[in-house]
């Protein structure tokens, strides 16, 4: 089974974010980056499937030069090879344009299964996978918790609202967007890290894959949300803050 996993590099969780002077993106000079968390689960699902079914896991990543680090980590965890589509801007803000680039890069791969995270922790459109499925003409499933290979296709477990789940049968080739947390993530072994250095990373240039099409969605400005709720916040030494809070809860809110 040939499995492609689309991964993205995003600012590390818990980064303190500042908007840049032009309001176009965040100040990125001092940020640390890591793999988008749902994509890490997509990669894990791909690796587990290969262990069961055999085949190959190819990671594909659109991003600037720094994304090389995230690609190397994916190879160290066990991906067989990688495709890196280099960009010269911090982010591609149009998920349809991005999906078309991914589809163009995958045109010669004909994968059996394409996996993505269900959303990115930065832009959070939650759509790239579904759009890519439509662009590639593949059936899809979202919020996937489990994948079993069955007669003529796969049976996946989808998460629904309010604690419900549903199994869905999907023929291959197909695309799935993977939910976080359903399995444990593996760490790269020392051996894996060593091996990663010899694995193939195919470099493509985004300008060779982009199609001339007008964007249908555009971000005009980004900014910190205004605080609309007046909350009483203490930020002094812990003991002082604790005393003040307990007093408020006792005598103002009267909840204790």
């Amino acid at each position: 089974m040939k499995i492609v996993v689309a991964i993205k590099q995003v600012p590390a969780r818990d980064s303190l974010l500042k908007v840049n002077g032009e309001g176009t993106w965040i100040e990125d000079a001092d940020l640390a980056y890591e793999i988008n968390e749902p994509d890490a689960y997509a990669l894990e699902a791909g690796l587990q499937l290969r262990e069961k079914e055999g085949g190959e896991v190819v990671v594909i990543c659109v991003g600037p030069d720094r994304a090389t680090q995230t690609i190397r980590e994916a190879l160290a965890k066990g991906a067989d090879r990688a495709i890196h589509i280099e960009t010269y801007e911090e982010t591609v803000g149009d998920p349809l344009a991005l999906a078309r680039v991914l589809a163009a890069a995958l045109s010669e791969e004909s994968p059996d299964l394409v996996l993505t995270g269900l959303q990115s922790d930065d832009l959070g459109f939650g759509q790239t996978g579904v759009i890519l499925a439509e662009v590639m003409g593949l059936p899809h499933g979202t919020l996937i918790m489990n994948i079993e290979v069955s007669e003529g296709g796969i049976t996946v477990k989808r998460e629904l609202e309010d604690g419900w789940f549903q199994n869905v049968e999907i023929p291959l080739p197909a695309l799935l967007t993977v939910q976080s947390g359903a399995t444990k993530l593996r760490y790269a072994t020392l051996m894996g890290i060593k091996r990663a250095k010899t694995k193939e990373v195919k470099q493509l240039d985004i300008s060779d894959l982009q199609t001339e099409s007008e964007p249908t969605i555009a971000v005009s400005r980004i900014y910190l949300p205004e605080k609309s709720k007046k909350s009483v916040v203490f930020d002094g030494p812990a003991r002082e803050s604790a005393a003040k809070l307990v007093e408020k809860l006792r005598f103002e809110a009267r909840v204790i």
Partner: protein
Amino acid sequence: MSGVLAVLELAVGGSGELKLHKMALEALAAAKRIGAELGLPVSAAVVGSGVGPVAAAVAQYSVEKVFAVDHALLAAYTPDGYSIALKQLVAATGAKYVVFPHTYQVRDFAPKLATSMGQVLASDVVGLRVEDGALVLVRQLFQGKINADLRFPGDGPHFVSVQAGAFRADGLEAGAAPVEAFTPELSAAQIRTKPLELFRESSRAVDLTAADIIVSVGRGIREAENIGVVQELADALGAELAASRPICDNGWLPMERQVGSSGQTVAPKMYVAVGISGAIQHLVGMKGSKVVVAINKDPEAPIFEVADYGIVGDLFEVVPALVAELKK
């Protein structure tokens, strides 16, 4: 029509009848806002099999028309069936704006529908306004830490899904709209996926909804061994312990203690969020609480936006200090 079309999601009620999803009317409220701001007529649509009664119920609101998109192959939800049917409806009505609630189902098919019409869905929108005659939509980046203003440069149709709680349905006016049946052209061969039965997993032995006070712990706790730190606070307050999703995914607390869109929805007298960032999927499960207290080291964490009281600081210092103070 060339107006605004609100697609109202359906759910199955206790006795198997179709009813509106709890967020459906919020999408109608958002559609009415867009219609009012741009001077466009607003219609609604429901999709499924046997949707007549629920379409008639929607017709009690002040809308131009209600489209009952009905087909036997739409009885069970599939992304193929829904996007093929709605593409035909959007084309037939010439709708300029199509508005959905940002539910799991909409996440599953609306990006596909938009793509099939060469468009991008503006997903999970929290606000909107009109500037120079053009619609500006607000959505959140970085799990609510940053906002972005969005525009549609092209001619449309434009697709929008709105976040739970962002638009209030209680101001919707009553009316008497005509219901129009719409039968999409659909064949079984076009539907590639086969949905099987629905099921639940967690036993729900713990009923968090009965608790007066809930202390809820998030990923700020760092490891399972530290859960005791917040357990002590829960004990000192006589509270139930709950958690954000990653804590339950990791098995540090059982699933049945998860609060949020995929866990329980709670509204206690006091909800204390410890080391929880305040992602929307968590907020929808607790923002009805009477008093919300947040403890977080990041002063910009979105949880403070719903908090009445907060402490900015390291939970490993703040929580023991609180316990000591409560025991005084």
